[in-house]
């Protein structure tokens, strides 16, 4: 086997696909949350901070209650609070959503770093009770797909359900119509007797919860009870790119997140051959390529309109 073939076989293995699902999951959860606020007409740049809060408080809950479920519970509670806080500022007091989002990210980074050092000391914490991976015996019999899907964190499976529910909610229920109307033409909803602000509150709340889940997956699912400073590592921004790329369609946002997961997994595998600094740039390069694609698609649409 030549060196090149060796690289290829490490890079394109079942392990890579397994890693893809793992890496995609937090981005996907946040992106689905971001799709909600995007439909409600809120440009939510603050998902990174929301994820970070979920990650830290998940570990804190797990540490204090010595149970992963306690961690998950605390993460969800914080998700609700952060979502409501975001809505209070952006929806109720009409602050600039971009500024509030940035502030939320900075605030979350500062707060979690400070609390982490106060509670766990300078080296962070490891090995708190975490959510176990699920082993589904019937899956192990299927080749490739079986090992790829099996032995994953609960969140990986949960995300599929969330995608389906979000898609049903947005496109198949009256509430989804209201949600989309609240972002596209709020006055229409208001004159129909439904408060667009209420829909924006709900969207912010859902986004807070889903981002907190994403954070909990990072600290309790993927990294077995570990918190490290800034562990969200810009996943919130990548999730935002997925939202834009998918035009806030939950299913497409999931696929976009999978793509990120795939390239991140490849990057991790390549680290034995190429500098990690270089492979770490891959997700961001992909973001740029995605955005170029979004712009190109828009221009194509414009040209089509011009010909019509």
């Amino acid at each position, binding site marked *: 086997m030549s060196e090149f073939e060796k690289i290829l076989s490490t890079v394109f293995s079942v392990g890579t696909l397994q890693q893809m699902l793992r890496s995609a999951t937090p981005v996907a959860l946040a992106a689905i949350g971001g799709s909600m606020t995007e439909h409600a007409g809120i440009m939510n740049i603050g998902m990174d901070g929301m994820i970070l809060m979920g990650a830290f408080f998940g570990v804190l809950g797990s540490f204090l209650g010595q149970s992963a479920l306690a961690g998950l519970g605390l993460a969800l509670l914080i998700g609700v609070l952060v979502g409501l806080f975001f809505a209070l500022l952006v929806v109720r007091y009409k602050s600039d959503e971009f500024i509030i989002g940035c502030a939320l990210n900075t605030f979350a980074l500062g707060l979690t770093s400070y609390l982490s050092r106060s509670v766990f000391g300078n080296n962070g914490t490891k090995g708190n009770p975490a959510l176990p991976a699920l082993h589904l015996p019937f899956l192990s019999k299927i080749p490739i797909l079986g090992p790829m899907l099996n032995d994953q964190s609960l969140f990986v499976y949960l995300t599929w359900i969330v995608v389906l529910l979000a898609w049903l909610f947005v496109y198949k*229920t*009256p509430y989804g*119509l209201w949600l*989309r109307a609240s972002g596209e033409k709020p006055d229409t*909803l208001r*004159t*129909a*007797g*439904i408060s667009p602000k209420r829909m924006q509150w709900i969207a912010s709340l859902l986004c807070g919860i889903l981002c907190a889940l994403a954070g909990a997956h990072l600290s309790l699912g993927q990294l077995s009870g570990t918190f490290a400073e800034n562990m969200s590592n810009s996943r919130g921004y990548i999730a935002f790119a997925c939202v834009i790329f998918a035009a806030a369609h939950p299913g497409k946002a999931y696929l976009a997140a999978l793509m990120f997961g795939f390239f991140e997994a490849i990057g991790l595998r390549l680290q034995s051959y190429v500098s990690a600094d270089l492979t770490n740039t891959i997700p961001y390069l992909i973001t740029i390529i995605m955005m170029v694609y979004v712009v190109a698609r828009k221009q194509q649409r414009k040209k089509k309109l011009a010909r019509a």
Partner: protein
Amino acid sequence: MKNNEAVIRFEHVSMQFPGVLANDDVSLEIRRGEVFALIGENGAGKSTLMNILYGIQTPSSGEVWIKGKRVEQYDPRIVIEQGVGMVHQHFMLVPSFTVAQNIVLSREPRKHKIFFDNAAAEAAARKLEAEYGLTVPETEAVEDISVGLQQRVEILKALYRGAEILILDEPTAVLTPQETEELFSVIRRVVRDKGMTVIIITHKLDEVMAISDRVGVMRKGRLVGIHETKDVDAAKLASLMVGRPVIFDELIRSGEPGATALRVEHLQVSDHRGLPAVRDLSLELRAGEILGIAAIEGNGQSELIEAITGMIPVRSGRVTVLGREVTGLEPGEIRAAGLAHVPEDRLATGISGLATVADNLLIGRQREPRFNRFGIQQNRKAIRDYAQEVYQRYDIRGAGVDSLAGDMSGGNMQKVVIAREFSFDTPVLVISQPTRGVDVGAIEFIHSRIMEKRNQGAAILLSSADLDEVFRLSDRIITLFEGEITGTFRAGEISKEDVGLYMTGSKRQGGQEA
């Protein structure tokens, strides 16, 4: 309830906004089964009154009764349930939703209690269409259908919600004459066959005469008169609106057209999105004539005018003012070549709201020696004297030349723009929307000034969304559709209805030169 019974009653309704009394002790009864027209100038309080009825605003004092029940809580949801529907001037439709989805929004048919039933929504839309004879493409997205159809969707939406009382806010502002006629026949049909009550807010007096049974006139927040339409005429209504007699004098034309003053050849212009807006357009304008542009908004008239006046770039073609090519020059250079411009949006480009009236009147002349000392220091006294003189000559009414232009009423702001541009005495005038949102009295004044300029030999290119204005002022009329000239007519040669056919591109003259 039988006919002639009061279906809506306003009792001593007042609405106080900070600094403005928008409605002042209004008492009014609307009868079941009538078409009631509510007219008044901008800011007279018509829309406020209707917003109160629709539950969007809560009055400061007074009561509203709908079908014999007092409105306790001002909330659109409750008012809608009592059978009031409103078609807003700016349509309340979600552009990406289908027609059917827009019609059922907020009262969606469901399956399994929580899911939206799209098929049932489309069926409901079709049922309504059949019942009221209003055809719409129920599966298409609203953004893909015409403005006239969008208005039908709005009406169907109100009917779907069970409206018996329909409020139409300036419904004809965006319609062609054909679409207006269709709308009126729909109104007559729902009133006659379904016993509906229609309230129509408008400032077009001929439409009041054509469609309404009774008319209420509002002025400065007060209801100053209610009349049976058959007892009044347009002139009477106009003077009631303004509060003093308005004489719609026949404008006097004199003189013969002279030499060509403005020439446009094969002009191509793109809009702000980069799409072609003006396509290979040529026209000639002679001294002593008014050439009016009749077009539905968004058909290239704005881009044509902005390209001629140097506000946006020209893609190809030539513009010549008095024999001198000005294509691609700066607005100031084009002005120096002999062309003044009254822009369509006075707030955005016509005036500076934060500057004084005097400074606004000065713009474009600031470098003239008489307003300067050694070219660096303003001569405030000369500027003030000049502004004072123009202020009086153009009958501008406000708090004087030292007040801020942004604090004036729309009509007076427009007079400032007209006064400034007309006082350059250029041989060519390009005028866009000269009286948009301006009250009847000011319209008369502005029209007579435009005609005076024409009679003095100015070449005038006029663009207006108000078809009546184009017909009243123009010697010749061109119709634009999608950036192309679809017809050229001498005034009096064509009716408004026929012009409508050329404006929508359904008719087209052979040649395309004007």
